[in-house]
């Protein structure tokens, strides 16, 4: 039995302690916003927050999450997390295409802005390089992050700098 805080609620799961957190979250807790992309921590589709920091859920054993604060993508209740603003910016920029990677992208971006509200391009590169988007929407994701940060961004829809 592993017990942790999940999006503000205490949850216990009875599972093999070796099970990766990804499959506990998806199969046992039915939170399918956390995606399987590679199983090797190479693509970021499974990004969650553990104690507010971005972690890949796919290779990470569930057992060490005992007593930790786990946040999967979706409707986040924590007031200190900028995810809701980012979700709106994602819509404003029409950032998703297939959308499969986007909850992971959003979790990486939220973790970045939580500690660095005014990221440089290099900061964004560094925080987001673990998240692959095969639809290639990097420009729109960058713009959406900058929109939330209040920085000028390239508006693909308008074809010009904005803000």
């Amino acid at each position: 039995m592993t017990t942790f805080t999940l999006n503000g609620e205490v949850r216990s799961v009875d599972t093999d302690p070796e099970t990766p957190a990804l499959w506990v979250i998806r199969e046992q807790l039915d939170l399918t916003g956390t995606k399987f992309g590679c199983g090797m921590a190479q693509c970021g589709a499974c990004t969650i927050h553990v104690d507010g920091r971005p972690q890949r859920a796919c290779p990470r054993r569930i057992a060490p999450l005992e007593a930790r604060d786990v946040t999967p993508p979706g409707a986040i209740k924590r007031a200190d997390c900028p995810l809701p603003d980012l979700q709106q910016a994602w819509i404003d920029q029409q950032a998703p295409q297939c959308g499969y990677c986007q909850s992971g992208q959003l979790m990486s971006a939220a973790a970045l802005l939580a500690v660095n509200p005014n990221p440089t391009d290099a900061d964004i590169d560094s925080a987001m390089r673990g998240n692959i988007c095969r639809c290639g929407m990097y420009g729109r994701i960058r713009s959406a992050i900058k929109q939330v940060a209040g920085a000028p961004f390239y508006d693909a829809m308008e074809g010009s700098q904005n803000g």
Partner: protein
Amino acid sequence: MGKWTRRAVLSAGVVGGTGLVVGIAVRPGNPTETAGHLVAGEGENLLHLYVKIDANNRATAILPHAEMGQGALTALAQMLAEELDADWDLMGFEEAPAEAEYANYTFGRGYLFKGIDFPGAVVPTVDGLMLKLSESLGMQITGGSTSIRATGQYGVRIAGAAVREMLKRAAAKTWAVSAEEIRTAKSTLYHDGSGRSAPYADFAAAAAQETPSSTPQLKKMSEYSVMGQSKPRHDIPAKVDGSALFAMDVKRPNMVYAAIKRTPVFGGTLKRVDERAARAMRGVIDVVQLPTLSAEGMIGSYSAGDSVAVVADSYWKAERALSALTIEWNTQGNESISSEAIFQQFERDISASTDRKNDVVIGDAATAFDNAETILSADYRVPYLAHTTMEPPNATAEVSADRAEIWVGCQNPLGFRQHIAAQLGLDFDKVTLHNHFLGGGFGRKSNADYALQAALIARAVGKPVQLVYSRAEDIRQDFYRPAVHSRFKAGLDAQGNLIAWHNTYVDKHEPIEAPLIPYAVAAQDIGHVASPTHVPFGAWRSVDHSQHGFFTESFIDEAAHAGARDPYEYRQSLLKDKPRMLAVLNRVAAEARWSVPMEDGRGRGISLQESFGSIVGQVVEVTVSSGKIWVDRVIAVIDAGYAVSPDGMKAQIESGIIYGLSAAMYGDITIENGAVAQGSFTDYDAIRMHDAPVIETHIINSGADIGGAGEPGTPGVAPALANAIFNATGKRIRTLPVMNADLRADSESSPSVAALTR
């Protein structure tokens, strides 16, 4: 109308993706009799296969394309709303069920008639024929960049306009006025003379009794008010809060999970499996052996080799137990094949040119080369490529003795359903298919191999099964963009003008025009030789354009440099009789400020490519320093005739460019010992945030026939990149990917011109 039984089943698989299937609109008669029970619910009147209108005056477009991020469903709904005069705020859409009525004969038109354009008057005849053909072939395909240009132009708009006429005729009867006196706006009918008005809903039931015209009056570009607007995509909000349902998010009662391994050496068969260790592991339910499976795909037949699957109560346990199997394969003599051997074979077959088949012969190439002042020759190569959709192939299946239910994300729901029925020996009617959002398609999910496997495993274990490919399995069991070798020879006159073009490459697929050049070269001889390999072929975003775009737009650059000419101006001079192409070329050069010199260590390259009915020009800007390359910016111009959703089109071009750039920079599937050597994003990487260029897309609405957007961004980026690298370093990239090239200034330089004779 309004039978709930079928709809309840069918709509469960509809998750909000939209797409349009063309052509049913031009069938004679009212199709609601056959299709009404499929999609109309209680209180809804099905006016047309593409349209239903409910009591609240809400119009729903029923669209036969899958949503894989391309946003075509929203754009198709715009086309319907435009011709229907529907209020956009009252407009919804849903993906059509996998039923024969929604067969999509776009592919039949494009592939059976090889892209021949028919005069408008014959379209109904041809389309009626194509509908029949595509029904028999099981086509309900999202691919070929066809949603807007075919389904939209020939189906949805005609449907919208026809329904509007039907509503007017119905109102005219009740109001006892002439239909010509009735006008429409925002989902409302008006008779100005008598001051009467009514929402469409009031006459929906009566209109459904009218016969739709196959030649209704369509609006002119100057009249568009919904088309041409960037409407927010309906599928996006669910994709940012984690609630969007992909196939892998399906969970059935008592569902178990399967991991699978197919013969790593293509063409191999299963010899024996030691299952003991795997079966002893906790949570393991069964080990299932699958035979080689075959089906007819979008472009020819395909097969999936012998496989072994482990079924467990968790995917992770299934995957772990799979690696505990000891499997022996018969490799059928393919175990010694390598990429090196394959490229040697290509070289040999091109040199021999036995049974060379021509794509194009213009003028007298042999004489032109005899008269040339300079002859330039070069060999180009591209490797195999996998698709690596973000969501690995997966399918969920429930199979009993007399029926099957499948949940997938796929590019051809109707075809999948037919293939599954055939594989299970069930009648088509006994198979239900639910298509979900696709976590990427790019051509991979047009082949049903993964769904067929899921169905067979589910039947073997007698429980609902979700089959998920590991990333390694996805990369090693794909249907690949083929490796290609292409040999060029160009003849230049004393002024450097291009007077002769000769090209021989291996293995032709689709579209047939991919290796052709738009340039006015008086003598051309373009042809191919067959050089089959054991590596499975698949449609990969832009198909043959992805390789030939790189080849031809690089080699024309070489010709320009050999003639000491500017590569942009050189292309200009060869496009005097191609005003649309010239306009795109000039625009992209202007947007990129082509004439402004770049500083040392930087370079820019240009490309121009027509594909899927659209013309795309690209300029890539790079910085090369100490052998490292940064792709700084891509400027793209697209003329797709008309942009129904400009932002959606820009997003598609951005996406196509990054997809092509990932391949150009890093994409390298190699064959070792008969099998794919790569198996992860470490050895088969993609462009990521830190190396993604800024992309600026500009749209030209030339008013020409509408072209595609999903694929045309991809072919031009590799050549523009290679041309930019040449501009920056003097090194010519003739083999992809770029990551394998040595770009250091002091490295052995590939000569700036491959081989100059005479």
